[in-house]
């Protein structure tokens, strides 16, 4: 019994770290452009399809195909910035966020036109056998994903809080006009945000989909990761790790113990209930910035 509990908790925590990795896409784009990206889930799907295209469809060996797909994802991010956001610098943030709502459906359409609605096999990047320690069973892809998430969080946290470039981007997240008047290029910052966002989403797709099947419905993970981003606060990268573990463990235990009692789906809705609760009690999340508004 107790070993089951530990098993559920550990698996939940690792799944939570995967959510944290996806949520990192939200946070990175927010931290460098002040835009909340509603299209995060679609970026994950796009990243997944790029991997599939390179490795399965083109038949490139994994060692070449996977890095190439990351490069392509970066190009997609740059294209998104060039086509949409470069023209909106100086407009309200509201307009930019509405564009991401447009991207939500636009990218889905593009994926459907380019790759079709069929279910595709995703390359097996991480070994399928779970890691067995005593009676604990840990899926390998989630374990590697957790390690990658922690590394990415530490690296990006250091970048945004300690380096000069990262701090200038933080200024963009604070206020576009102020950043512009300090000589910071808002355009370059937004371009960087979208490139990094796309690359992180592709990494998320690799961890999430490794050895599974892929079609456009995989984008639901984007909204599943939303509670993690909000619990951490949209400005904090390091906080994502803690928030991911909290949400993941709660969800894992709820799925294991509550779903049989009420007949399903509590595990998938509980994070949203947590999200609403957090927003009501502490709108800026655990580690978000407290903003002071002036008129």
């Amino acid at each position, binding site marked *: 019994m107790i070993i089951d509990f530990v098993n559920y908790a550990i698996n939940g925590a690792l799944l939570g770290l995967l959510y944290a990795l996806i949520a990192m896409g939200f946070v990175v784009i927010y931290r460098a452009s002040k835009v*909340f990206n509603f299209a995060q889930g679609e970026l994950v799907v796009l990243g997944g399809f790029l991997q599939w295209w390179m490795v399965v469809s083109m038949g490139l060996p994994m060692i070449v195909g996977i890095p190439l797909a990351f490069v392509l994802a970066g190009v997609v991010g740059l294209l998104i910035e060039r086509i*949409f956001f470069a*023209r*909106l610098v100086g*407009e309200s943030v*509201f*307009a930019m*966020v*509405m*564009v991401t*709502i*447009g*991207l*939500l*459906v*636009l*990218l*889905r*359409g*593009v994926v*459907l*036109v380019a790759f*079709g*609605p069929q279910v595709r096999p995703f390359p097996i990047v991480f070994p399928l056998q779970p890691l067995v320690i005593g009676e604990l069973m840990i899926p390998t892809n989630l374990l590697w994903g957790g390690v990658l998430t922690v590394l990415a969080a530490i690296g990006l946290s250091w970048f945004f809080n300690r380096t000069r470039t990262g701090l200038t981007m933080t200024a963009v997240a604070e206020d576009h006009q102020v950043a512009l008047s300090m000589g910071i290029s808002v355009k370059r910052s937004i371009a960087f945000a979208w490139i990094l966002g796309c690359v992180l989403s592709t990494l998320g797709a690799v961890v999430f989909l490794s050895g599974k099947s892929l079609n456009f419905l995989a984008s639901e993970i984007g*909204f599943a990761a*939303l509670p993690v981003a*909000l619990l951490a606060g949209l400005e904090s990268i390091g906080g994502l790790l803690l928030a991911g573990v909290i949400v993941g463990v709660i969800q894992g235990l709820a799925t294991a113990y509550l779903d049989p009692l*009420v*007949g*399903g*789906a509590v595990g998938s*809705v509980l994070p*949203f209930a947590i*999200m*609403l609760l957090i*927003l*009501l*009690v502490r*709108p800026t999340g655990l580690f978000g910035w407290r903003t002071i*508004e*002036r*008129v």
Partner: protein
Amino acid sequence: MDPAGVFAVRYAQDRALLRTRKQWLALAIFLAALALLPLVVGPRLIAVANIMLISAIVVVGLQICTGYAGQVNLGQAAFMGVGAYTAAVLAEKTGLSFLLTIPLSGVAAAGFGFVFGLSAARIKGFYLALTTIAAQFVFHFAVLNLPGSWLGGSNGATVPPATLFGYRIASDTSLYYLCLICTVIMVCGAFGIVRSRFGRAFVAVRDDDVAAGIMGINVVATKATAFLVGAFYAGVGGALWAYMLRFVAVDQFTLFNSVFFIAMIIVGGMGSVVGALIGVFVIRAIQELITTLGPELAASLPFLGGDIVFASMNVFLGGSIALFLIIEPKGLMHRWNIVKAGYRLWPFPY
């Protein structure tokens, strides 16, 4: 701007929506044309017109919530769904007349919307938009997990046809008149709301909520009211939807539909009731065109496959949102106003 030579000399004249006799005439001709439409066009187009009228009600509500009060609402389809299910259950279980179920559906949806609007007490900006996404998920979860005998679960629920004095409103034409009357009432109401004290409070909160608060407007109550009104419109639209299809299911009210509604107000023009109507007409007309032409297109270009219709709808919709925000953020209504001012001033530049 008024036509040359028209000056308001009384307050009532200044407040009036229709200033000149010609405007009254134009409105009368327009309404008469709408009333006579079923005599001219076939049943297929009338069915399309019904969908347009219902969308118009829902989108006018969204326009009040998002365009006037500035609260991004990604849950309008869920609010519409609450209205549709309320109408379905009331009509099926209690046999109430549609004269009662339609307003009651509006009230039910308004209550649901108000709950999410109340979170404005703590949350603002895009966090608030996120809670409306949560509305979408809560709605789906509730419908699918409540006992099947209540709402029909994933099978959906059937709706008996609306009847008035023993006459069944089931044909496309009779439904058209029902939808038309409801739309006219709701649009008149919208014009009233947006130029009232509440409407001015909405605009003040949209432009700067901190400044609005300092001027003495109760910001939280205003935001919650905006959600309440917007959701009421969605509920009425949802009830009509239930009577039109005579069947409601949870997958008719998805986040995708909410995005569709947002696209309509962006294309039509934010902050204008007429703009919402134009947006509904343009987007639905193009959508209909894609659906009609899609199969032929897919047949003539077989390499694209049959799924191109849904896919191209997505591309068109997302593309039009982004394009309008970049090129004409004020929407088609703004363009039309420029043209109108131009011909009223002609031959003078200003």
